[in-house]
């Protein structure tokens, strides 16, 4: 995005959420060594423990004191097992989705924050897939606690976690249409019927243009 003016105003400046402000975002580039902190040693350890490192990790990003590995989805389970068993990342703190509708071919991103209690370290895995082929292997077999997190990400983003023991909606009703946290899903885009009067969705109630 391009900034203009002291506060970077663009468009209508309306932040109420209903003025149709459009922003685009894509993920950033890759980091160079040395990464700093324990990250260099950790990546070295991973390269030793996992010979296919260079073929499986697309990017290594160090930003704001956090290490992110971009993993090819075919290799996700393999590398997770190495991280869990050899590098002692005993816990996966779930999975969070991100939707970048303009990043063609990699629209949907799954983010896994891992925690090693043995070494008191954190690391993050990222897997990106396209909307048309939104399949990512499930990590429930590796970290059982990912069960509900993957269901939530499926519910909200429509990422299908293959081999999940029961991939159903968890927060929205079972018969819900669409995946609410995708960027092309309007906020409050559901007409509400209240005592016979039909109330339009918030996005259609008022206009600032």
């Amino acid at each position, binding site marked *: 995005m391009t900034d203009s003016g002291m506060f970077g105003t663009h468009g209508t400046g309306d932040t109420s959420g209903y003025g149709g402000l459009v922003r685009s975002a894509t993920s950033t580039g890759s980091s160079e060594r040395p990464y700093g902190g324990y990250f260099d040693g950790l990546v070295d350890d991973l390269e030793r423990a996992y010979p296919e490192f260079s073929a499986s990790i697309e990017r290594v990003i160090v930003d704001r004191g956090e290490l992110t590995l971009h993993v090819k989805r075919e290799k996700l389970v393999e590398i997770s097992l190495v991280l869990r068993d050899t590098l002692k990342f005993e*816990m996966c703190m779930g999975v*969070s989705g991100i939707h970048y509708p303009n990043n063609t071919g990699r629209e949907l991103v799954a983010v896994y924050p891992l925690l090693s209690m043995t070494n008191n370290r954190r690391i993050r895995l990222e897997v990106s897939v396209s909307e048309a082929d939104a399949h990512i292997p499930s990590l429930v077999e590796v970290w059982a*606690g990912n069960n509900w997190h993957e269901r939530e990400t499926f519910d909200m983003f429509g990422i299908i976690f293959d081999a999940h023991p029961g991939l159903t909606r968890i927060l929205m009703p079972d018969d819900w249409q669409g995946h609410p946290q995708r960027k092309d899903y309007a906020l409050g885009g559901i007409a509400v019927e209240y005592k016979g009067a039909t109330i339009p969705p918030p996005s259609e109630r008022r206009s600032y243009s």
Partner: protein
Amino acid sequence: MTTFDPYAPSRETTEGTVFSVTGGDWDSLVQEIGSTKEERVVVNMGPQHPSTHGVLRLILELEGETVTEVRCGIGYLHTGIEKNMEYRSWTQGTTFVTRMDYLGPIFNETAYCLAIEKLLGITNDVPERASVIRVMMMELNRISSHMVALGTGALELGAITPMFFAFREREIVLDIFEMISGLRMNMAYIRPGGVQQDLPEGAISKIRDAVKLMRKNFKDNTNLLVGNSIWLKRTQGIGYLDLAGATTLGITGPVLRSTGLPWDLRKMQPYCGYENYDFDVVTADTCDVYGRFLIRMNELEQSLRIIEQALDKLENLDGAPVMVADKKIAWPAQLALGSDGLGNSLNHIREIMGTSMESLIHHFKLVTEGFHVPAGQVYQAVESPKGELGAHVVSDGGTRPYRMHFREPSFNNLQATSAMSEGGMIADIIAAVASIDPVMGGVDR
């Protein structure tokens, strides 16, 4: 099948006979179930049930009184907080996150604000006084949250008096919150860059008195429950979950510490200056409901210790700023606490409306549009009363979050219900769920 019974009507489905229970119909229900040959009964418990900690639905498969399978149904309190935040400025987000785990609002706000500060790269610029106030508020909040966990947990197991005591203590904390922020719950008091406003006059001495009072009062519940033989029978060996189970399920907080592992983010990965406080990580090695109960009881005293140290620090930091110096981030409105709650500061209104056009413009831009946060993502975790509360924040460089996700400890820990309860008695499910201390506002967000 049987004669028509208005209180326990039954109908045949492909899954078997379904009974609708409406209350006051126990005898007729028992009679009808007794007439079927099926041993296995599936019971739907909740979402409107007094013992399920809010709108949690439990689907139980029973053989007699033994539970063979438990599944949780959640989502009844889903409010779309994460989605809504994408349409509001970064500062406005605090008013959303405070409503997730409504028993621990300060923790939600702190995790969120620490994450934003990390994205902005101003973590070290947050004034010390603000960090100390945050720590003090978090520990007060930990007490009020543990009080609800203990009080409702005891109530659900049939002990009414502990709840009276617990809510008496919670009132003390909520009164302090009201004195400081104007609100008892959902305060939105922690803001990106610091806190909303400084402590009011006389707050420190009032909190000191409250700490003394609470330390005395906590003994009431200790005397009632610790070692109480009925309480022991309901909690010891119940809801067993060992370290291996807790690790693979991603369980944190008191449930993890009840397996003997002293894992507490305040010690292991300190934030807000927790490394400067003297306190102990409380553990138990029983892996059961009683161990979790003891941990919560003993954490109360540790929280009081931290509050006292924070008060000492605050006395030395009197008059220091509570918000970052950067005027592009700090909320411009100097709010004041009036007799009718929090409102605009008249002096500030006088300045922007009467004397300084630039201040007015600045105020207007920052309030309507908010500040920009450089693109990137961070994950910031804090030790909430329930476990690791993680904020995953993604910014695209705009004035609003591109994506917000909360790794809620209640959401994650509730997955342990099956592991804790299957094979046990139906009455013990209540004890197991209560020991997880789930708050459905946090689970569903």
